[in-house]
């Protein structure tokens, strides 16, 4: 079945388009909208859909998708787990947090668990240095981490499946 947006997301798209003097400016917000509607990634079909709706070339949209790290041009896990690796977090032990996640999930950073549940990645500074070490799960920040706190986060993530 061809990719399309449900009625609610179509309404959101109309609201997005109304904010800008041209359609192209809606490109990144629309890609986020479509990504959330498509299991958190942007297939060539979705990219074509965005291009057509915004009167852009697919090359332009693909160029945008490949530029930004939060637009996924490959399938990804159901949940996203980012461990901040940049200096302030590194000074407070983010290296240990990352290896703990890798050990518990039995994957390396950049990989997805075999069941497709969690994708583990390192993140560059997430503007939460005062709460270092920190990680982000989907839309939520977790700061001032200990290994016990990480265990609790991972327990919830792996149990809810």
């Amino acid at each position, binding site marked *: 079945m061809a990719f399309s947006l449900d009625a609610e997301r179509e309404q959101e798209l109309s609201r997005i388009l109304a904010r800008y*003097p041209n359609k192209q400016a809606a490109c990144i917000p629309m890609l986020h909208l479509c990504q959330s509607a498509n299991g958190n990634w942007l297939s060539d079909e979705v990219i074509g859909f965005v291009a057509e709706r915004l009167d852009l070339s697919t090359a332009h949209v693909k160029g945008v998708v490949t530029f*930004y790290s939060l*637009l996924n041009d490959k399938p990804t896990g159901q949940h996203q787990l980012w461990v901040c690796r940049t*200096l302030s977090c590194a000074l407070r032990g983010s290296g240990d947090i990352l290896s703990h996640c890798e050990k518990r999930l039995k994957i390396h950073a950049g990989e997805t668990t075999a069941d497709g549940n969690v994708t583990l990645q390192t993140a560059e*500074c997430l*503007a939460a240095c*005062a709460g270092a070490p920190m990680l982000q799960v989907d839309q939520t920040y977790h700061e001032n981490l200990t290994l016990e706190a990480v265990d609790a986060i991972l327990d919830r993530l792996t149990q809810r499946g």
Partner: protein
Amino acid sequence: MLKQTDYISKNYDKPDSFKLALYEASGGYRAARKALAMPREAVVEEVKKAHIRGRGGAGFDCGTKWSFMPKESKKPHYLVVNADEGEPGTIKDRTIMERNPHLLIEGCIIGCHAIGANVCYIYVRHELHLAKERLWGAIAEAKAKGYLGERPLGKAFPIEIYVHTGAGAYICGEETALLNSLEGKRGEPRLKPPFPAQAGAFGCPTSVNNVETVAAVTLALELGGDAFSRLSALHEFNDGGVRLYGVSGHVKRPGVYEAAVGLTLRELIYDLGGGILGDRPMLGVIPGGSSCPILLPDELVHVPGDARFAPYEGKSVLDLPMGVDTMRNVGTMLGTCCAIVLSDEADPVLACRNLMAFYKHESCGQCTPCREGCGWLDGILDKIVAGKASLEELDLISEVASNVSGNTICAFGDGMAGPMLAFVRKFRGAFEDYILNGGQHQTRRLAL
């Protein structure tokens, strides 16, 4: 002279700090009422008197920037707020958006009027979901009260504010990259000129300002420009007002603190930050985000021929009031005024490598010197840490970094090269130790 203030942060710890009711109970939206009753030029003059130096890192005077906007123009004008906070160590804008969003929204209303813009975009990095939610909520509340829309606060000058999100790219904090990203393109910086005030968003006159800068405009209008400026210890440097200070790394109380401009690094680290973890000596401090060269505690202020620096001559750089022009004169930058502190147990070579990996990841790839240079430096540092590099390669670091500096479209290259060169110059012994002895004498750890 530690002078903590609470103009921005007074309600930070209250659960309803992001709501309009609490904001108005503390005097909110009085400044916008005042500003919208003034002629546009008078608002810009008031902001000039406040000496608000750009809080996003470059330190450019906000009122001066606004005065570059055309007086008459057939094209629409835009105010774009840079909320793409992501410079390592920088943690202040997020607190405003999450805990006092109306201060920013009020500043946007004042700013739109001052530069003749009917539309303001707040460009928030995608990861800051709570910040976006709080901003949309504040916009809805302000709109419901008639502070935004067709007749904001009764004035016949429509103002709309929209939150726009990025998609994960540090470079979009650079103002012209941000504009390209806002326009739905790859976030690659543009050549200047034209400057955004001539041709910015959608080819129209645009002012791009940092979140905290715009928030400070609200305070300047509320208190009066001159009174706001005089809160600062560096009023005579034309560096006015109060600001948020971040401190992270090896300190006991990392956090965001508000104080008058001109706090010293020693006050930030030891008084507000609680001192170094384990009461260790300090190795060094990166004063304002990763693009600012690191300072060592035994470096001294030496600025001959400038009377304003006389009181600090010969003192530790830690005792120099932090300001845009003061820090520039001791070989670093104020940046975003957020210090990253390293204790003497941290390994400077690993710290340097950590930051260069960041720059390699975030270089947009548009300019060859930066794209290739960041990769080379990251590669050499990996070799050094692995104990496989030669002393010639240590000199190659300086050569590569120097060749990036000044040879790129935007300031990213300089923001990478300056800190890199400072690390090698100030910690040469530690780098050589890795090369000659495999780093045997280092702790080889960053975390304590």
